[in-house]
């Protein structure tokens, strides 16, 4: 585990950028300017940055509705991301996907699937293609504790194990599926334990520690690249805000949420960086300032951008040879 200083600082900045991005969306919901629903990943920044740091840019990572941060950590354009969330034509998906279908294929991030479960089985198809390609790339799929009970979880792991696909399943256990606590609906304490049912390795790692996530993911990815078959990682963490922005979270007490906030992954990483002498307070502040600036540019870009024209309702529906679709 050898990450150069520049990389560590970049990771810190990305975590801060993600927090800022998500919180600005929360503000937009309060203002009433954000259409539809967003599911914010505030508190899960270590997951997003740790996972992306542990994988190559040539790997594929599919993610969930709570993973704007994952796509940002992949290096996606923050302006086009925000524009998409606001339904503008300049968004990644021309405004036709929104937050729940946000994707940046040029960063090998197929993004969010609006149905829980299929992303896991679809990931196998991506892995199959990567196996055929033979360049040692892997297909990772992020899903939550709730989705781990869908039939697809089992079908996908079983098939991936049988076909020895280069697939990495990452379950982000933030303990709640909307209002349902994982303890009430999961028959086992650790979702990673289910890996044993499919004969593949299952690890648990601390999802609030970006370096622990990085290590778990990079080591597991190494094993998969060596042809040892798929694996399952469970990252234990928590989300600070509601399932969707606006959810008052009556199923949790303020004390519980406060306990979660004590495990702030950004504060923890900052502490580690300062302790190790990798950065000073001044450096960290400067990085935050950069991130804030980039966010403001994204906000301005979104505000300036127009909505798509009505013709776009019928583009991208079918592929037609010879036509510019």
């Amino acid at each position, binding site marked *: 585990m050898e990450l150069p200083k520049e990389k560590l600082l970049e990771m810190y900045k990305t975590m801060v950028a993600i927090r800022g991005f998500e919180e600005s969306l929360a503000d937009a919901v309060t203002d009433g300017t954000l259409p539809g629903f967003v599911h914010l990943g505030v508190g899960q920044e270590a997951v997003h940055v740790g996972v992306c740091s542990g994988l190559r840019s040539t790997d594929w990572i599919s993610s969930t509705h709570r993973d704007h941060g994952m796509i940002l950590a992949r290096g996606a354009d923050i302006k086009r991301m925000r524009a998409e969330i606001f339904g503008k034509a300049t968004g990644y998906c021309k405004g036709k996907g929104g937050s729940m279908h946000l994707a940046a294929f040029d960063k090998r991030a197929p993004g969010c699937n609006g149905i829980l479960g299929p992303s896991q089985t679809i990931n196998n198809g991506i892995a199959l293609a990567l196996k055929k390609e033979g360049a040692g790339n892997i297909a990772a799929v992020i899903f939550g504790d709730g989705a781990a009970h869908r039939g697809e979880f089992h079908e996908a792991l079983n098939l991936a194990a049988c076909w020895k696909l280069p697939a990495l399943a990452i379950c982000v256990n933030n303990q709640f599926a909307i209002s349902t606590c994982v303890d009430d609906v999961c028959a086992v*304490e650790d979702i990673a*334990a289910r890996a044993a049912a499919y004969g593949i390795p*299952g*690890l648990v790692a601390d999802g609030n520690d970006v370096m*622990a996530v990085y290590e778990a993911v990079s*080591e597991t990815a190494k094993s998969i690249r060596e042809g040892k078959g798929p694996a399952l990682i469970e990252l234990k963490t928590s989300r600070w805000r509601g399932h969707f922005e606006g959810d008052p979270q009556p199923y949790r007490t303020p004390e519980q949420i406060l306990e979660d906030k004590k495990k702030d992954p950004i504060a923890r990483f900052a502490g580690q960086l300062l302790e*190790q*002498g990798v950065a000073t307070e001044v450096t960290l502040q400067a990085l935050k300032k950069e991130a804030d600036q980039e966010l403001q540019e994204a906000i301005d870009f979104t505000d300036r951008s127009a909505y798509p024209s009505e013709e776009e309702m019928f583009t991208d529906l079918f592929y037609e040879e010879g036509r510019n679709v």
Partner: protein
Amino acid sequence: MKPVGIIANPASGKDIRRLVAYGSVFDNNEKVNIVRRVILGLDSLGVRNVFFMPDFYGIGIRAMDGLDVSLEVCFLQMEPEGTQDDSTRAAQLMNELGVACIITLGGDGTNRAVAKTCRNTPVLPISTGTNNVFPAVVEGTLAGIAAGVTALNSASDPSFVKRVPRLEIRRSAQLVDMALVDVVVSEAGFIASRALWDVSKIREIFLARAEPENIGFSSIGGLLCGLTSDSGKGVHIIIGEGNCRVKAPIAPGLIRTVPIKQFRVFEPGEEIPISQTPAMIAVDGERELVVKQGDRLSVALNLEGPRVVDIALALRQASDKGLFFEPQ
């Protein structure tokens, strides 16, 4: 008869070592089975009360479910957090409750957590973790019986309960941390996933145990010095090219060539300073301490570590005394 305590750690055995080494997956169901056997062993010796550390999986609850025994089980009044601190707190409570011994299910890490607070209460360790030097691979029923024997002899100071040494890390005179088996100093880095498997980053190793039949970093000491488990000495190894190279099983399934610059056996009480800073210190297989530039830490061997039940000796002595013979 004094009560007995059981600390079964549901967390051990599910970390990254599953992947970077070939450690067995000790699933919690198997732990439940072991605890069942322990309970039956205890019950057969007439132990009446057992204290359990509560845990998320409910190992104790599941083990007792449907079990036909006379003894009574009580759960400690504590909220489990799902970390090693649970074991430390449980051991403290059990020590205060005056248990005859504490049976542990776990690896070196779990036992180290227990050893921090068990004081004079003997520990009876059953192995279920990855890197196991401290706990024994022992069948649960026998462990329960041996614990029962310990409870019967708790008034005296039986010879089958022995003190084992521990390594102590100090900053000036202050005790900072301790280890039951090994203290491994490597290049500065993050604690991250805690496990240690990259030999290239290691600078020096301090061992309380150095037998060739050990797994883990203490195997290096074992292959160099070949001590016995009751040697009462420590081994200090400095890693690097120079003296020799040793092919050692540093983790299950992981055999690595380790370059040895220097090594020596050292006496208890001798304070050995940690030479280079900054550094990362791992104790009993887990990265634990970040050492900053200029931080002056030292390692010493203290013979007054935890008391441990020698299961084979306990059973033999009890058998010799006719404990297992029923009246006609």
